[in-house]
Protein backbone atom coordinates (compact mmCIF):
# COMPACT_ATOMS: atom_id res chain seq x y z
CA UNK A 1 0.00 0.00 0.00
CA UNK A 2 1.17 3.53 -0.46
CA UNK A 3 1.00 5.77 2.56
CA UNK A 4 0.62 9.54 2.87
CA UNK A 5 3.71 11.04 4.47
CA UNK A 6 3.96 14.27 6.43
CA UNK A 7 7.73 14.17 5.86
CA UNK A 8 7.27 14.27 2.10
CA UNK A 9 4.68 17.03 2.40
CA UNK A 10 7.18 19.08 4.40
CA UNK A 11 9.94 18.38 1.86
CA UNK A 12 7.64 19.63 -0.90
CA UNK A 13 6.73 22.78 1.03
CA UNK A 14 10.45 23.51 1.55
CA UNK A 15 11.26 22.35 -2.01
CA UNK A 16 14.11 20.37 -0.41
CA UNK A 17 14.19 16.64 -1.21
CA UNK A 18 17.03 16.12 1.27
CA UNK A 19 14.46 16.44 4.06
CA UNK A 20 13.07 13.05 3.07
CA UNK A 21 16.43 11.36 3.57
CA UNK A 22 17.21 13.30 6.75
CA UNK A 23 13.92 12.04 8.21
CA UNK A 24 14.56 8.40 7.22
CA UNK A 25 16.61 6.60 9.90
CA UNK A 26 17.97 3.93 7.52
CA UNK A 27 19.06 6.57 4.95
CA UNK A 28 20.95 8.35 7.72
CA UNK A 29 22.49 5.04 8.89
CA UNK A 30 23.82 4.42 5.36
CA UNK A 31 24.64 8.06 4.57
CA UNK A 32 22.32 8.71 1.60
CA UNK A 33 21.54 12.28 0.55
CA UNK A 34 20.51 14.16 -2.58
CA UNK A 35 22.92 16.03 -4.84
CA UNK A 36 22.08 18.23 -7.81
CA UNK A 37 24.08 17.10 -10.87
CA UNK A 38 23.47 18.78 -14.26
CA UNK A 39 20.20 20.28 -12.97
CA UNK A 40 18.93 16.85 -11.96
CA UNK A 41 18.58 15.21 -8.54
CA UNK A 42 20.94 12.29 -7.90
CA UNK A 43 21.09 10.04 -4.82
CA UNK A 44 24.51 10.10 -3.18
CA UNK A 45 25.88 7.39 -0.88
CA UNK A 46 28.88 8.76 1.02
CA UNK A 47 31.36 5.89 1.46
CA UNK A 48 31.95 4.52 4.94
CA UNK A 49 34.19 1.60 5.92
CA UNK A 50 31.16 -0.19 7.35
CA UNK A 51 29.64 -0.46 3.83
CA UNK A 52 32.21 -3.10 2.91
CA UNK A 53 30.90 -6.59 2.14
CA UNK A 54 34.11 -8.09 0.76
CA UNK A 55 37.07 -6.99 2.88
CA UNK A 56 39.61 -8.72 0.58
CA UNK A 57 38.96 -6.63 -2.55
CA UNK A 58 37.60 -4.46 -0.83
CA UNK A 59 34.11 -4.05 -2.30
CA UNK A 60 30.75 -2.65 -1.19
CA UNK A 61 28.18 -5.08 0.25
CA UNK A 62 25.60 -5.94 -2.42
CA UNK A 63 22.87 -5.06 0.07
CA UNK A 64 24.18 -1.51 0.41
CA UNK A 65 24.13 -1.02 -3.36
CA UNK A 66 20.66 -2.58 -3.47
CA UNK A 67 19.41 -0.27 -0.74
CA UNK A 68 20.77 2.77 -2.59
CA UNK A 69 19.02 1.65 -5.79
CA UNK A 70 15.71 1.04 -4.00
CA UNK A 71 15.96 4.42 -2.24
CA UNK A 72 16.67 6.13 -5.59
CA UNK A 73 13.73 4.37 -7.25
CA UNK A 74 11.32 5.44 -4.48
CA UNK A 75 12.74 8.98 -4.52
CA UNK A 76 12.10 9.34 -8.26
CA UNK A 77 8.57 7.96 -7.87
CA UNK A 78 7.82 10.57 -5.24
CA UNK A 79 9.67 13.59 -6.61
CA UNK A 80 9.28 13.15 -10.37
CA UNK A 81 5.58 12.38 -10.02
CA UNK A 82 4.84 15.21 -7.54
CA UNK A 83 3.57 12.70 -5.00
CA UNK A 84 3.15 13.08 -1.26
CA UNK A 85 2.75 9.34 -0.61
CA UNK A 86 5.40 6.68 -0.12
CA UNK A 87 4.94 3.89 -2.68
CA UNK A 88 5.35 0.28 -1.53
CA UNK A 89 8.04 -1.85 -3.15
CA UNK A 90 6.53 -4.96 -4.77
CA UNK A 91 9.82 -6.32 -6.08
CA UNK A 92 13.31 -5.33 -7.20
CA UNK A 93 15.64 -7.08 -9.65
CA UNK A 94 19.21 -5.97 -9.17
CA UNK A 95 22.05 -6.74 -11.61
CA UNK A 96 25.53 -6.28 -10.22
CA UNK A 97 27.74 -5.19 -13.12
CA UNK A 98 31.05 -4.25 -11.52
CA UNK A 99 32.52 -4.46 -8.02
CA UNK A 100 31.57 -1.45 -5.93
CA UNK A 101 34.85 0.20 -4.97
CA UNK A 102 35.33 1.84 -1.55
CA UNK A 103 34.38 5.32 -2.80
CA UNK A 104 31.17 7.39 -3.00
CA UNK A 105 28.36 5.93 -5.13
CA UNK A 106 25.57 7.73 -6.99
CA UNK A 107 22.20 6.50 -8.24
CA UNK A 108 19.52 7.87 -10.48
CA UNK A 109 16.64 6.50 -12.48
CA UNK A 110 13.54 6.97 -14.54
CA UNK A 111 9.93 6.01 -14.08
CA UNK A 112 9.58 3.69 -17.09
CA UNK A 113 5.86 3.16 -16.78
CA UNK A 114 3.41 4.93 -14.57
CA UNK A 115 0.24 2.96 -14.21
CA UNK A 116 -2.80 3.78 -12.15
CA UNK A 117 -1.88 1.27 -9.47
CA UNK A 118 1.65 0.10 -10.29
CA UNK A 119 4.78 1.84 -11.60
CA UNK A 120 7.92 0.38 -13.12
CA UNK A 121 11.17 2.19 -12.33
CA UNK A 122 14.68 1.66 -13.72
CA UNK A 123 17.70 2.82 -11.74
CA UNK A 124 21.46 2.70 -12.11
CA UNK A 125 24.31 3.18 -9.66
CA UNK A 126 27.76 4.45 -10.64
CA UNK A 127 30.97 5.68 -9.06
CA UNK A 128 33.57 7.42 -11.27
CA UNK A 129 32.03 7.32 -14.73
CA UNK A 130 28.29 7.41 -15.16
CA UNK A 131 28.52 5.31 -18.34
CA UNK A 132 30.17 2.50 -16.35
CA UNK A 133 27.42 1.60 -13.85
CA UNK A 134 28.29 -0.74 -10.99
CA UNK A 135 24.69 -1.93 -10.76
CA UNK A 136 21.34 -1.58 -12.53
CA UNK A 137 17.89 -2.47 -11.25
CA UNK A 138 14.26 -2.38 -12.14
CA UNK A 139 11.40 -2.59 -9.72
CA UNK A 140 7.64 -2.51 -9.41
CA UNK A 141 5.98 -0.25 -6.89
CA UNK A 142 2.39 -0.14 -5.65
CA UNK A 143 0.96 3.37 -5.70
CA UNK A 144 -2.38 2.65 -4.04
CA UNK A 145 -3.35 1.02 -0.79
CA UNK A 146 -4.12 -2.71 -0.98
CA UNK A 147 -7.48 -1.84 0.55
CA UNK A 148 -8.26 0.48 -2.41
CA UNK A 149 -6.95 -1.81 -5.14
Amino acid at each position, binding site marked *: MSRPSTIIEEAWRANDPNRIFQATPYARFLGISIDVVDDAYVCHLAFRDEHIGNPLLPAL*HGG*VTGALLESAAIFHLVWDLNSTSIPTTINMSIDYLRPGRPVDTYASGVVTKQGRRVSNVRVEAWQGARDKPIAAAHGHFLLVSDADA
Partner: protein
Amino acid sequence: MSESHVSPASSYVAMAERFASVVPHVAAMGIEVVTASIAKATLKLPWQAKLVGNHDEGFLHGGAITTLIDSASGLAVFLALEKPPSIATLDLRINYLRPPSQREAVIAEAECYRLTRNIAFVRAFAHHGDLEKPIANSSSTFMLGSPGRPLARGREGDAS
Protein backbone atom coordinates in the same frame (compact mmCIF):
# COMPACT_ATOMS: atom_id res chain seq x y z
CA MET B 1 27.60 -31.08 -3.66
CA SER B 2 30.27 -33.81 -3.54
CA GLU B 3 30.31 -36.57 -0.94
CA SER B 4 33.75 -35.46 0.21
CA HIS B 5 32.33 -32.13 1.36
CA VAL B 6 30.94 -33.23 4.69
CA SER B 7 32.26 -31.53 7.79
CA PRO B 8 31.16 -31.72 11.41
CA ALA B 9 28.03 -29.60 11.94
CA SER B 10 29.92 -27.34 14.32
CA SER B 11 32.41 -26.36 11.61
CA TYR B 12 29.64 -24.87 9.46
CA VAL B 13 28.40 -22.78 12.37
CA ALA B 14 31.99 -21.71 13.15
CA MET B 15 32.46 -20.68 9.52
CA ALA B 16 29.20 -18.71 9.57
CA GLU B 17 30.17 -16.98 12.80
CA ARG B 18 33.50 -16.01 11.24
CA PHE B 19 31.68 -14.64 8.16
CA ALA B 20 29.38 -12.54 10.36
CA SER B 21 32.29 -11.07 12.26
CA VAL B 22 34.73 -10.33 9.41
CA VAL B 23 32.27 -8.76 6.91
CA PRO B 24 32.14 -5.12 8.03
CA HIS B 25 28.61 -4.36 6.84
CA VAL B 26 27.18 -7.57 8.35
CA ALA B 27 28.74 -6.59 11.67
CA ALA B 28 27.51 -2.97 11.34
CA MET B 29 23.94 -4.22 10.80
CA GLY B 30 24.11 -6.42 13.91
CA ILE B 31 23.28 -9.52 11.85
CA GLU B 32 23.54 -12.77 13.87
CA VAL B 33 23.95 -16.41 12.87
CA VAL B 34 20.98 -18.64 13.77
CA THR B 35 22.02 -21.90 12.11
CA ALA B 36 24.37 -23.07 9.38
CA SER B 37 24.82 -26.37 7.58
CA ILE B 38 26.00 -27.60 4.21
CA ALA B 39 24.81 -25.07 1.57
CA LYS B 40 22.30 -23.53 4.01
CA ALA B 41 22.45 -20.45 6.21
CA THR B 42 19.94 -18.82 8.55
CA LEU B 43 20.69 -15.29 9.73
CA LYS B 44 18.78 -12.93 12.02
CA LEU B 45 18.51 -9.15 11.83
CA PRO B 46 17.38 -7.74 15.18
CA TRP B 47 14.93 -4.83 14.89
CA GLN B 48 16.84 -1.57 15.35
CA ALA B 49 15.54 2.00 15.26
CA LYS B 50 18.40 3.00 12.92
CA LEU B 51 17.17 0.57 10.23
CA VAL B 52 13.64 1.95 9.99
CA GLY B 53 12.47 3.21 6.61
CA ASN B 54 9.52 5.32 7.66
CA HIS B 55 9.79 6.56 11.21
CA ASP B 56 6.05 7.19 11.48
CA GLU B 57 5.40 3.48 11.21
CA GLY B 58 8.54 1.74 12.45
CA PHE B 59 8.87 -0.67 9.53
CA LEU B 60 12.36 -1.85 8.61
CA HIS B 61 13.55 -0.37 5.29
CA GLY B 62 13.40 -2.79 2.35
CA GLY B 63 17.12 -2.20 1.84
CA ALA B 64 17.86 -3.68 5.27
CA ILE B 65 15.93 -6.82 4.33
CA THR B 66 17.77 -6.96 0.99
CA THR B 67 21.08 -6.78 2.86
CA LEU B 68 20.03 -9.58 5.25
CA ILE B 69 18.93 -11.79 2.34
CA ASP B 70 22.05 -11.05 0.27
CA SER B 71 24.23 -11.88 3.29
CA ALA B 72 22.43 -15.17 4.02
CA SER B 73 22.55 -16.08 0.32
CA GLY B 74 26.27 -15.37 -0.01
CA LEU B 75 26.95 -17.34 3.16
CA ALA B 76 24.95 -20.31 1.80
CA VAL B 77 27.29 -20.31 -1.23
CA PHE B 78 30.35 -20.35 1.04
CA LEU B 79 28.86 -23.25 2.99
CA ALA B 80 28.33 -25.19 -0.27
CA LEU B 81 32.01 -25.04 -1.20
CA GLU B 82 34.87 -27.10 0.08
CA LYS B 83 37.38 -24.28 -0.32
CA PRO B 84 35.33 -21.08 -0.50
CA PRO B 85 36.69 -18.60 -3.03
CA SER B 86 35.85 -14.94 -3.09
CA ILE B 87 32.30 -14.56 -4.44
CA ALA B 88 30.34 -11.71 -6.03
CA THR B 89 26.58 -11.28 -6.35
CA LEU B 90 25.61 -11.33 -10.05
CA ASP B 91 21.95 -10.60 -9.56
CA LEU B 92 19.30 -10.65 -6.90
CA ARG B 93 15.55 -10.57 -7.33
CA ILE B 94 13.55 -9.84 -4.20
CA ASN B 95 9.76 -9.95 -3.78
CA TYR B 96 8.27 -8.17 -0.80
CA LEU B 97 5.38 -10.48 0.07
CA ARG B 98 3.89 -8.67 3.05
CA PRO B 99 4.89 -5.70 5.20
CA PRO B 100 7.29 -6.59 8.00
CA SER B 101 5.84 -6.41 11.51
CA GLN B 102 6.84 -3.41 13.57
CA ARG B 103 9.74 -3.83 15.99
CA GLU B 104 10.30 -7.50 15.17
CA ALA B 105 13.52 -9.28 14.18
CA VAL B 106 13.71 -10.66 10.64
CA ILE B 107 15.11 -14.12 9.93
CA ALA B 108 16.47 -15.04 6.48
CA GLU B 109 16.89 -18.67 5.42
CA ALA B 110 19.00 -19.21 2.30
CA GLU B 111 19.88 -22.34 0.37
CA CYS B 112 22.44 -22.76 -2.40
CA TYR B 113 20.56 -25.35 -4.47
CA ARG B 114 22.79 -25.53 -7.52
CA LEU B 115 26.51 -25.08 -7.96
CA THR B 116 28.43 -25.05 -11.23
CA ARG B 117 32.09 -24.32 -12.00
CA ASN B 118 31.46 -20.58 -12.15
CA ILE B 119 28.01 -19.87 -10.82
CA ALA B 120 26.01 -20.58 -7.65
CA PHE B 121 22.18 -20.39 -7.57
CA VAL B 122 20.47 -19.47 -4.32
CA ARG B 123 16.92 -19.06 -3.03
CA ALA B 124 15.97 -17.42 0.23
CA PHE B 125 12.98 -16.56 2.39
CA ALA B 126 12.68 -13.87 5.04
CA HIS B 127 10.14 -14.19 7.86
CA HIS B 128 9.48 -13.32 11.52
CA GLY B 129 9.81 -16.87 12.79
CA ASP B 130 7.05 -18.57 10.78
CA LEU B 131 8.26 -19.74 7.38
CA GLU B 132 4.60 -20.15 6.38
CA LYS B 133 4.23 -16.36 6.59
CA PRO B 134 7.19 -15.06 4.60
CA ILE B 135 7.71 -11.30 4.33
CA ALA B 136 10.08 -11.63 1.37
CA ASN B 137 11.59 -14.22 -0.94
CA SER B 138 14.48 -14.02 -3.33
CA SER B 139 16.31 -15.73 -6.15
CA SER B 140 19.94 -14.83 -6.68
CA THR B 141 23.07 -15.93 -8.50
CA PHE B 142 26.68 -15.54 -7.47
CA MET B 143 29.92 -15.70 -9.43
CA LEU B 144 32.65 -17.80 -7.84
CA GLY B 145 36.02 -16.07 -7.74
CA SER B 146 36.23 -12.30 -7.92
CA PRO B 147 37.10 -10.20 -10.96
CA GLY B 148 40.84 -9.98 -11.45
CA ARG B 149 41.44 -13.06 -9.38
CA PRO B 150 41.69 -16.62 -10.61
CA LEU B 151 38.44 -18.51 -10.34
CA ALA B 152 38.34 -21.33 -7.86
CA ARG B 153 38.82 -24.84 -9.14
CA GLY B 154 35.36 -25.91 -10.30
CA ARG B 155 33.24 -28.68 -8.93
CA GLU B 156 33.27 -31.84 -11.00
CA GLY B 157 30.85 -32.33 -13.85
CA ASP B 158 29.66 -28.78 -14.43
CA ALA B 159 30.83 -26.27 -16.94
CA SER B 160 29.19 -22.89 -17.14
